[in-house]
Structure formats: structure tokens, C-alpha cells
């Protein structure tokens, strides 16, 4: 196991990002099968700025129609007692995932660190897993691009050329370089089911998931649920911690503080 890229020492009143960074390094020193990555989202701190969604789209070079972490924004109540509720929704990385056993070609599975992985090179694109997820965390890559149907002009007009180059950069989902393209035989992940990876390639480099670092309210916590002293372990044991659709028995590894 190589040494983590940078080390952080504890300080009083430190930013939770610093704490989580230190915990991440601690977890990475363990073998993979002894880690159990989890997330806690404090809905009271979320302001629905969507910087997690945007950061995720940038990090994973997501095309239109594919989203790993939308933020549900709901208005509740009737005037004059009106308020809004926010719920960021990453993949729940269920302990008992309903999306895994439905795959006819075993292209998706639970890794030893608890993350549900997809092998884009094996997925046949039947979309059965998409129907089976009770959180709708999987989306399909239809091969669309952000600059599709945009006005075509000379180079540099509306920075279209630059935008098109930017969006066709490879994606590194699951730590593999993917250069998507359409065609008679589309280049994966076009034609595949895609979902949140908990930023597997960033974790491998000792970095926190993108959505955690971009969260301006520090509402998203990430760490090793197998480490009893980690922030996520402590927070997930709070009395106000819930998991979505717990009654289904999927045992999500994403907790919400209400």
C-alpha cells in the first residue's frame, strides 16, 4: 500500500474536510475488504446550491441525461407556513442491493469495500437494473452531448468548439479511462447504465469524493463506517439519522440527518 499523498494532523476546531481527509488516509492504510465506505448527509445544512451535482458532473464528465447526485428540492406547506426541503441523492451503495442480482451478465456487483460497481465493458444495456433500483440512482447513457443541436459556426463562436472539446474528454468512472462515442457499436459507457461511484478513482488517490469537497455548507460527510472513530460512524448513530426506504431491507450506506 503506497503512502497517502499528503498527511494531515489534528487541530482544534478544524474544518470537517480536514478531519475526513485524515480519516480517509487512516482507512486507506487498511486492506480494501476491511473498509466500508459510507456517507452522511445533513439535510439541515443543505441549501440546495447544487454544487455537489455540478462538481460530480464535472468530475465524471457526465453527458446530459446522466446524473449521479441530483438534489431533490421540494416546497412544502401552504402559505403562510411554507418551507423547502432538500435531499441530495447519491447512489445508496446498499448492503443488500436490488440492482445487482437482476443483471443477466453479472456486470454489476458489490465490491469488498461495499461500493456497487458496474463494468461498462460488460453491460449489455438492458436497463433491468435501472427498473430495480428503488432510489432511481441509475441512469442510462443515451449517447447525447451537451453541445448537440447547438448553433454551428466558425471556430470560437460562443466558445462552442472549446465546450465540445471539454465535454468529450474521457471519463474515469471506476478508475478506467472511458472515451465515449456513438456508432453502430457504441463506445461504452454510451449504451450502459451508469451511477455514482463514490468517486472510486479519487479515493484511490487519497482524495475525498467530489461532492464532499464542493459542499459549501459542509453538509456531506464521507468515511469508513468500519472505523468506529470516524465522523460518519459517529453521525450515522445519531438519533436523527435515517436511511431512505429502510423498510425495504436494502440497508443503504448513505444516512440522512433530519
Amino acid at each position, binding site marked *: 500500500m503506497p503512502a497517502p499523498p499528503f498527511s494531515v494532523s489534528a487541530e482544534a476546531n478544524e474544518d470537517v474536510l480536514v478531519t475526513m481527509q485524515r480519516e480517509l488516509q487512516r482507512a486507506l492504510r487498511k486492506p480494501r475488504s476491511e473498509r466500508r465506505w459510507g456517507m452522511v448527509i445533513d439535510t439541515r445544512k443543505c441549501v440546495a446550491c*447544487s454544487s455537489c*451535482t455540478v462538481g460530480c458532473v464535472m468530475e465524471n464528465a457526465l453527458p*446530459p*441525461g*446522466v*446524473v449521479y447526485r*441530483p*438534489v*431533490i*428540492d*421540494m416546497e412544502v406547506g401552504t402559505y403562510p407556513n411554507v418551507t423547502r*426541503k432538500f*435531499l441530495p*441523492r447519491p447512489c445508496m451503495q446498499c448492503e443488500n442491493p*436490488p440492482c445487482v*442480482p*437482476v*443483471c*443477466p*451478465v*453479472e*456486470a454489476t456487483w458489490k465490491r469488498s469495500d461495499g461500493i456497487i460497481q458496474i463494468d461498462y465493458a*460488460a*453491460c*449489455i*444495456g*438492458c*436497463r*433491468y437494473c*435501472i*427498473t*430495480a*433500483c*428503488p*432510489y*432511481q440512482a*441509475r*441512469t*442510462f*447513457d*443515451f*449517447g*447525447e*452531448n*451537451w453541445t*448537440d*443541436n447547438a448553433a454551428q459556426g466558425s471556430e470560437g463562436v460562443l466558445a462552442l468548439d472549446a465546450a465540445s472539446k471539454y465535454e468529450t474528454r474521457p471519463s474515469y468512472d471506476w478508475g478506467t479511462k472511458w472515451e465515449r462515442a*456513438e*456508432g*453502430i*457499436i*457504441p463506445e*461504452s459507457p*454510451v*449504451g*450502459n*447504465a451508469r451511477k455514482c461511484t463514490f468517486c472510486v478513482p479519487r479515493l484511490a488517490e487519497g482524495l475525498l469524493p467530489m461532492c464532499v469537497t464542493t459542499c459549501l455548507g459542509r453538509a456531506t460527510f464521507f468515511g469508513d463506517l468500519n472505523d468506529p472513530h470516524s465522523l460518519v460512524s459517529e453521525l450515522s448513530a445519531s438519533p436523527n439519522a435515517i436511511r*431512505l426506504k429502510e423498510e*425495504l431491507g436494502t440497508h443503504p450506506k448513505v444516512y440522512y440527518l433530519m
Partner: protein
Amino acid sequence: MWALWLVAAVFGGTGIVERLLYGERFVAYTSYVPWGMWVSAYIFFIGLSAGAFLLSSLVYVFGVRSLERIAKLSLFTAAVTLAMALLSIVFDLGHMERFWEVFTRPQFHSMMAWMVWLYTAYFTLLLAELYFALRGDMSRTSTASHERDRRVLRILGAVGIPLAIAFHGGVGALFGTVMAREYWHSALYPIIFLVGALLSGGALMTAIVAFFWPRRDEAWRETMNFLSKLLLGLVLFDFLLEWAEYSIPGWYQIGAEYHLISYVLFGPFWYVFWVIHLGFGVILPVLMLTLSKRPVVQGIAAALIAVTFFAIRLNLVIPGLISPELRGLQTAYLDPIGHRLSYSYVPSIFEWQVTIGVLAIGVALFYLGCRYLPLFDQSRRVERRSEEIA
């Protein structure tokens, strides 16, 4: 007829070529309604196949005399509709070039994998049965070898019955086992699929016999009457199951599934249920079948049942998917380019094109079969002929 087929072939063929060149760019299904027209077409065609096959096994296994004349035709229809089903679902795959992975990377938990394995076995069996059923008529074999073929057919047919039940029940289970979709998650599904298969496949055969049978004799009238009675029973039984499927979760007008049922009954596509399915697929055919003994009327009733059964398939696949699993997801993040994060789905012209293309291919296959295979020969007459030769 020719002109109609040509229009369908050109219109549909263009769609199929587009599908091959541009993938799924022009479909209307989304990430949230990931299955649509093509999956519905798939289960529609595969139901026709299972139904037509089970009809043929009534002859080969149970020796039902009234259907003997149409046994070969049923087998052939089963093979053609199965080919149509497989085409529909292959076009639906994001990576159709990887379909063989279902055999090389088996996942034994997946109901979909089981379904694929079972219909592969079923397809093989169908082809073998067709071979033995037609061999006697194609070459002038002896009575002894003809008898041997009948025995082989009886065995193949007997193996085929549990296989057809397993594979089509499996298609129902594919939907029924999905816990996340309350609309589908019902133990009744495999049963409904089987009865639906018998009904739609039986109706298709009745319509084919009514309109394409070469000899309008007494025997034909007898077959038509038998099939019509069978059909009437099946329509009513299927309706009973449908009543159970809708009334149980909907009775007290509360709960998640109630909302999906009211979407089917009173939503924007209410006419698919009330007019197309109930009107033209149940009430009208039941009236026609009970009030008239004329083969033309019986044939039209059967054709109505067979065609409108597609409405049942659409109403089975799509409503299961139109409601967000988490409230608010429909507005959480939108896709301005392809509208793929939407819960509303109406099949695009392109999806119709591909389905019509598949239909045109099926009709062409059926026509070629009728033209070049001895599907309409009565085996009794053949026996007589072979006796004369001997």
C-alpha cells in the same frame, strides 16, 4: 395488401437502419422510464409465440382432433413471432453486440438470464419440431417413418409444454420479481402472462385460419367453431385475472399502487384501457363470438383480440415506471438536450418505425413460409397419399 406491406417495409426499414447507425438517440424512453414501446412489443410477440406453440401441442401431445389441421401452421407462427420478439428486444439493448454474454457470463440470480436461456431452449425445440412436422410432407416418406415422426413430435411437444410455461411465466416473473416497482410486484404476473399468451396466441391463430385458410370446407368451419369457443373462454378468464389485478390494490382507493391503477384507468392515456383494450379487445369480441357463428365474424373478433392485446402490454410496462421512486426527483435535475430525466413517455415515431419494421419482417417471413412450406397440408390427406405410394 402488397402496397401496404411495401409502405410498412420502407417506413420500418428506415427506422431499423437508423437504429443501427445512430443507436438509441431517437427513442423517447428515458432514464426514468427506461422501458417502452420495444419492450412492450417484445412481450407482445413472445406471448403470441408461446400461445401459438401451446395450441400446437394440444394436437401433438393431447391429440385434439379439431385442431389437427392447424398444428403445423401454429408451430410456424410460433417460430415467426418468436423471431419478431427477439428482434424487438435486440434493438432495445444498449449494446446488442454483447447479447452472447448472457451465455458466457451467466448470472444465476437474474430472472432475465433465465428467460434468455429458456427461450433459447424453446427456439431450438421449435425448430426441431417444425423440422419433424414438415419432413413427412416435404419428402414422400413411408408411413412407418411418418409414424416415427409423429412419436418424436409427441415427445418434443411434451417437453415443450413445461418449457413454454416456464419461459413465458419467466417473462411475467421478470416483471413480478422487481420489488422496487409496486405496479409489477405481484404474484399474479406469471399467471397473467400465461393466460395472456394463450389468449393472444390463440386469437392470432384463429384470425389466420379465418382469413388465410385455403379451403372453406366443413372441417374449416369446425376448427373455427372450436377455436372461437376456446377464445371466448380465454377472454373471460383473462378479464377475471385483470379484475383481480386492478381491484385488489385499488379497492379502497388508497396506497401507492392505487395511484398507478388510476393512471391507467383515468390518466392521460385512459382510452388505451377503456376504448382499445376493453372496448375493442374484450366487449366487442365477446359480443361477436357469442352472437355469431359466421367464421368471418369470428375471424374479425379474433383479430381484434390479437391486435388490441398490444394495449395490455403497453399498459403493463409503462405505468410501472411513470411514478418517481422518490418524490421530487422529477424536478431535481433536468436534461435539456434529450429530456432523458423525465417521467412522461410517449413512443416516438422512430420507435413506431422500428416496431413496424419488425412487423414487416414477420409478415414477410410468414408469407414465405406459407408459400414454400407445406403448412396448410392436412396430415390425413398426406397419410392417404403416402399409403397410395406404398
